[in-house]
């Protein structure tokens, strides 16, 4: 994992919340909690809508200061299109240390697919691709 810039956890949390607002949807809830342990969490939901489809992105992030730099220690993103859960991206090094970063394709046979680390921006792009392709 490449080191991110040195900055405060509070600044990083504010930056993550602002990224949620930049996905092109309506943030219907985004709540960050800071703890005195170098940890913070973000729970959020973004509604996205095209001419014919409705999408929703739910977000959970566990941010942690590691070696003086705040990082996404865990994340769980879920993409919903027209009420159906389609895809999920997780980073979960404690639940699945053998495959921390993985993808879920709901309805597929394989429960977890090895996947690279994803950014919130990439996940946002994917949900817009889903929405544009649904008619």
């Amino acid at each position, binding site marked *: 994992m490449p080191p991110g810039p040195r900055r405060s956890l509070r600044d990083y949390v504010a930056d993550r919340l602002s990224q949620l607002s930049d996905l092109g949807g309506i943030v219907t809830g985004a709540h*960050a909690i800071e703890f005195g342990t170098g*940890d913070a969490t973000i729970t959020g939901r973004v509604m996205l809508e095209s001419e014919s489809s409705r999408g929703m992105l739910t977000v959970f992030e*566990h941010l942690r200061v590691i070696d003086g730099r705040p990082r996404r220690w865990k994340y769980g993103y*879920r993409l919903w299109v027209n009420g159906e859960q389609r895809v999920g991206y*997780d980073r979960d090094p404690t*639940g699945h240390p053998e495959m921390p970063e993985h993808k879920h394709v709901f309805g597929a046979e394989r*429960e*977890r697919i090895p996947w690279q680390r994803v950014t919130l921006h990439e996940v946002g792009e994917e949900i817009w691709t889903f929405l544009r392709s649904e008619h």
Partner: protein
Amino acid sequence: MPNFPFRDPTSIRSMDRAELEELLRQFEDAWTEQEGERLTSPQFYDRYRTGEIDSVFAMAWASYYEIYRSFTTRHDRAALVDPLVAA
């Protein structure tokens, strides 16, 4: 202003150890309601570590439990170790 005319309903707040303990209880209650089985957070965490439970709900519950344990470790150090170091 992507959300005009609405303001983003975002919030940032701090949470202490007692509030976190209450939040863990809420996860335990939600699990009981959904699964019909009562699990304490430590019991849940042991099961979660086996990879048996795989959901964002579980990931979040586990995260809050890990943070709680971190609080506890710091609290123990402050109460049991630091005074001896100072002495």
